[in-house]
């Protein structure tokens, strides 16, 4: 069992949890993820390792409540335990030799973008972070990003925090102003990554995206997480989750992510009902 040692609401839909998982903490690197089951009847869901503490033997996850399982996870509290927590899975993000990088995060994707931002910063790389949210109340990890970057640009859809506009607008502006990046790392909703990759392709800047297809085992056994990258079939859980953004077939990935929409809506409603019953 894997004990929850800290729980913190970052915004109304995004929560941080620190979990006791010494074996995972020992090996974790930015870019990798875990798979958890909250309880013995639950589904397996992948979440990125947002932070880790090798001495304490803990791993931090940050999740957005989007459906039945994340809602159920969020009903647990400090002192409760998760039944299963396996990792670190996937390949760590490559950071070797990078001197200047723009990290682009969107929404909860910022949680995934944060650990690599921190690592690059600690390695002495110049990091510009561009983070985007729908509105001010959804902003997360502002202080953390500020501390781990040389420049932080906050964007919001409605202009309630930072500048009004898209992360791609901010990235374009920085590139046009003469900033020369070795690499752009983009992590967020598929559409966002698609348009960041489209933009950087025009400028010929290498771009890494973190893909999050539907997974089950996370060990390369089921093939459910497959993607088309440069016309080849790749399994995100073992070959990724990072891929060359200029080669990924985003449209196909978006299609595949929606495969179980009807089921998921039903499961979410059922979880909400259960929740209401318990509250009563």
């Amino acid at each position, binding site marked *: 069992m894997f004990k929850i040692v800290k729980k913190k609401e970052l915004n109304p839909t995004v929560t941080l949890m620190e979990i006791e998982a010494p*074996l*995972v903490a020992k*090996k974790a690197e930015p870019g990798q993820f875990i798979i958890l*089951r909250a309880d013995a*009847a*639950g*589904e*397996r869901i992948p979440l990125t390792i947002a932070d880790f503490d090798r001495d304490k033997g803990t791993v931090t996850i940050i999740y957005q409540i989007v459906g*039945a*399982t994340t809602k159920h996870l969020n009903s647990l509290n400090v002192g409760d335990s998760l*039944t*299963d*927590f*396996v*990792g*670190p*899975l996937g390949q760590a993000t490559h950071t070797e030799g990078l001197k200047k990088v723009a990290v682009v995060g969107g929404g909860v994707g910022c949680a995934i973008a944060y650990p690599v931002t921190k690592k690059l910063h600690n390695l002495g790389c110049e990091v510009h972070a561009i983070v985007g949210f729908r509105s001010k109340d959804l902003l997360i990890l502002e202080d953390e990003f500020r501390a781990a970057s040389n420049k932080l640009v906050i964007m919001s859809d409605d202009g309630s925090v930072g500048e009004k506009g898209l992360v791609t607008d901010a990235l374009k502006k920085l590139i046009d102003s003469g900033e020369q990046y070795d690499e752009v790392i983009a992590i967020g909703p598929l559409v966002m990554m698609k348009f960041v990759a489209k933009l950087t392709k025009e400028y010929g800047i290498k771009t890494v995206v973190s893909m999050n297809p539907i997974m*089950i*085992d996370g*060990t*390369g*056994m*089921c*093939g*459910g997480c*497959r*993607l*088309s990258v440069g016309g080849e*079939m790749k*399994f995100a859980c*073992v070959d990724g989750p990072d891929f060359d953004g200029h080669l990924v077939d985003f449209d*196909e990935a978006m*299609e*595949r992510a*929606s*495969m*179980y929409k009807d*089921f*998921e809506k039903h*499961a979410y409603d*059922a979880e909400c009902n259960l929740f209401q019953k318990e509250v009563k």
Partner: protein
Amino acid sequence: MPNMSPKKNEMPTQAPDVRNKNFKEVALGYMPETAIDEAKRCLNCKHKPCVAGCPVKIHIPAFIEKMAQGDFEGAYEIIAQSSSLPAVCGRVCPQETQCEQKCVRGIKGEPVAIGRLERFAADYHNANCKTAPQKPESNGHKVAVIGSGPSGLTCAGDLAKAGYEVTVFEALHLAGGVLVYGIPEFRLPKAIVQKEIDTLKELGVTVETNVVIGKSTSIDELMESGFEAVFIGSGAGLPRFMGIPGENLKGVYSANEFLTRVNLMKAYKDEPSTPIMHASKVAVVGGGNVAMDAARCAKRLGAKDVYIVYRRSMEELPARAEEVEHAQEEGIIFKLLTNPTEILPDENRFVGGMKCVEMELGEPDASGRRRPVVKEGSEFVLDVDCVIMSIGTSPNPLIKSTTEGLAVHKWGGIIADEETGKTSREGVYAGGDAVTGAATVILAMGAGKDAAKAIDEYIQSKNKE
């Protein structure tokens, strides 16, 4: 006087149109009288040709003789000398190409139902034997086993019985390997596998789930931390796809994914937490046991039409004869000599159909099987809304890439000595599908057994020096 009936005693089963709607076991098992009657068909041949057909050399006539006398526990004890998973093997061994193929009764009629008798003895033992196995005295030596499929479980069990302190590391949240995530409940009830794992635990084996060797930790680290030997039983690996257009459409699964959702994640239950598509017309591409299982699961989930699409003919179908028969009875439609060329989308980018060509058998190829060739102008579209690819696997590179000096074949399988499972790394042994590619439960079990013996000898001799 032996029972000279030319036919096996029939196995009672759930009626086909009942069972294809539930996940309960299909074959119900012999009654004691039937078992005795069937056992009496054995001639107790001097040359025991049947034994040569069994990969782990169970003393078949000896155990059957006990059965004929009604001494089922005695029969079990004889089987247990050679096999650690008789309740499993009795159910899933391809008997018609192994023990039963060699049975002399098969020359002029049907062979003795060796598998069914083995299953009976094992089930009898499991139902009636209440004494927990004694935990052997520890010899202080530690061995690690990677993977909890039949090869790993067997290796762990044998070593534990010899006094070793064994830890099994399993990547998934549940132990059992393919026996729990692949082979469905209606063919191999999960309780049987669980019982085997409980027995191991009683023998003192530690089972650590949620540990991926090559990620969570490595073989070298295991050795450094005091494990004197390691057995790799990590299974067959990544699913293969055909490389035809449309394979990433919504509604295309690998058999591994489909079966994992159904079996391991219980997607067949009411209100499951893991989703699965409830398709109405399903094509399963392939002809092995895996394909039969996927097809029969799809049917049970409510599909109206389920096709097995296989490019050769009935004779070449690699699945167990019993599964093919059961699948046919359950209404699975066999589209033989048929090969898919493209999966077509519907307007929502789900599967809308599968383009196929008809094949005919040409000259035999290197494997001796006649090579299927495309029939000119035979293209047609099969009306389906779900496609399950079941065309094999290729080895998972995870352990190889994190274990320096571990030699593998060009195709990725671990190179291991056939008799001992010894690999190119000292103290590291391997067996089962990770070595052979997708094979059978009994072969994996046999490999685990051989490796346990070799590991014991290795550690003994090392500590004598």
